[in-house]
């Protein structure tokens, strides 16, 4: 059974205006998405700014009120606060944020930052607590002398690792990582991603990995979904998405990644322009009159694409 099941999730924000501040329209931030996360799996959510990927993450952890749909965790419905409280949900689901500096309390020492979730959920004696915090710091490669430092004393990569240590302190089953490495440099990004993978193997954690960086998602995730305008345009395994993309939006995103192969950069640029052109001319076929992404069609066991109906039959 899958750990998390998201069924037809919708999050709409009202737009109010006029004298009585009446609701006259909605922003369809997330508009009917379905996906499942298996235990121990890393699921990738890819999308550009404003596509709704962060909103999905926030709805799953309960920071966002959902308009309709269902979120099942271990088979239990966790769509409302009451249901979440009954389940130790806040212990089992944790989050890693993008900006490591603003997500750590500047007035607290690292020891207290990591111990805070432990104090909330587990009754440990002082020595046990200290032991556990040390163990956690050790798993992310920080030492005993870092215990009583403040967040500002660390570099960006170290702070993000502290964020990881705090997230795993309660032995969660699911960690939602919202752009965990996009503020980091390349070499430091590698460190954090390596620790995340090691921890996953060690504790069998599932990740929901939210990112706009297609290279990082390809590295981390076995299956993933591409979002555009609040809906999924394509979902499938790494191989489906990167080697056999079918939706024009996916193709466009993939073509826009700059290539480190210098010798072929002109060819790459030409390819990108062609894809861009196809996207402009064929856009109307892949989106309905209101600009909504079409419903997903299954093209293989693992691969679903929001294709126009005539195209599915053709292939």
């Amino acid at each position: 059974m899958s750990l998390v099941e998201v069924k037809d999730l919708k999050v709409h924000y009202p737009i109010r205006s006029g004298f009585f501040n009446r609701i006259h329209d909605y922003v369809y931030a997330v508009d009917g998405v379905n996906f499942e996360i298996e235990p121990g799996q890393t699921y990738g959510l890819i999308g550009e700014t404003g596509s709704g990927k962060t909103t999905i993450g926030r709805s799953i952890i309960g920071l966002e009120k959902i308009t309709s749909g269902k979120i099942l965790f271990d088979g239990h419905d966790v769509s409302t606060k009451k249901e979440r409280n009954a389940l130790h949900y806040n212990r089992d689901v944790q989050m890693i944020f993008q900006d490591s500096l603003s997500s750590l309390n500047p007035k607290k020492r690292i020891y207290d930052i990591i111990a805070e979730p432990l104090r909330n959920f587990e009754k440990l004696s002082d020595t046990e607590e200290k032991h556990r915090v040390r163990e956690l710091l050790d798993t992310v490669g920080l030492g005993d002398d870092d215990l009583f430092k403040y967040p500002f004393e660390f570099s960006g990569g170290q702070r993000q690792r502290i964020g990881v240590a705090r997230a795993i302190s309660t032995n969660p089953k699911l960690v939602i990582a919202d752009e965990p490495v996009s503020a980091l440099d390349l070499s430091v990004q590698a460190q954090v991603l390596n620790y995340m993978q090691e921890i996953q193997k060690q504790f069998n954690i599932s990740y929901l990995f939210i990112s706009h960086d297609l290279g990082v998602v390809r590295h981390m995730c076995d299956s993933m979904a591409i979002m555009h305008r609040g809906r999924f345009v394509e979902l499938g395994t790494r191989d489906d998405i990167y080697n056999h993309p079918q939706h024009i939006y996916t193709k466009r995103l993939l073509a826009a990644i700059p290539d480190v192969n210098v010798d072929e950069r002109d060819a790459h640029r030409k390819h990108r322009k062609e894809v861009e052109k196809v996207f402009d001319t064929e856009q109307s076929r892949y989106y309905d009159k209101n600009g909504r992404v079409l419903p997903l069609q299954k093209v293989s066991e693992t691969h679903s694409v929001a294709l126009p109906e005539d195209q599915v039959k053709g292939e």
Partner: protein
Amino acid sequence: MGEELLTIDHLHTSFKRGTKYYDAVDDVSLKIHKDEILAIVGESGCGKTTLAKSIIGLHDLKRTKISGHIGFENQELVGASPEKFDKLRGSEMGMIFQDPLAALNPLMRIEDQIQEVLDYHTDYSKSKKHKIVLELLDQVGLENPERVARQFPHELSGGMRQRIIIAIAIACKPELIIADEPTTALDVTIQAQILDLLRSIQAQNHAGIILITHDLGVVADTADEVVVMYAGQVVERGSVSQIFNHPLHPYTRSLLKSIPQADRAGDRLYAIEGSVPPLTKMPHDGCRFAPRIPWVPESAHEKKPTMHEPEKGHFVLCTCYQTFEFENGEVV
């Protein structure tokens, strides 16, 4: 390659911390020509932006010491007066910043913001300035320039704002454009468009562009020449194919190795040990990259690292590149 536009020789930029001065840019020499895109790459804290600010004269001279030589069109920029910089900035040098929202005035209409540059540097008539603004907006690929000209920054998307910044930077057709992380805050598809735009502007205006970035993909896609900086120093410099096809310095090679690769998805990524030392703890002697490759014996490094030129136009700092291999013996 065009004529020489900017020459930097043995530039030191140091900041005051307490009572002492620390070199954030340490002995940097480079050249940029017309019709050329020079990329400066490195991690945060490597002195990329400090270098750019030294060129364009944005440092607070009460707390900063700049020494060395920056030659721009037969003028010496080190120690130049603020008045002189006022004349140069905008007219002969343009700057593109990372965060387009912070770089635009939220209370001014787009047209007025672009006109500001023209007001300062030219004495064109009002109608001519208006015409130029519309031309610029068209040149940076914005549809319906008339409408955009009347809008405010908050009404535009991130990519459009960055186009406005570029329009301001090129308003007086500067010879040199400095772009400091111009696409870091943007989505990949927008990033590709902005890079295309920079290239086309360079082709039209025959300007030299200094592109500062930490994204190796952007460099490989856009640059002609590459300068790799580490801890305030230039560790390697050469053409884009030299740097990406035959990287020499251990830092460049480690950086290239830590990019997630398609065929090795899911494997452990190569991570460089440790981090860039902070300004006040910068080592003075020896190879600054040595602490991050501890398995390399001390004898491989130079006591006082010097620039070597193993092939024409390809420079590398310190001798450690000659024998360097990764810890597991891999040679990349």
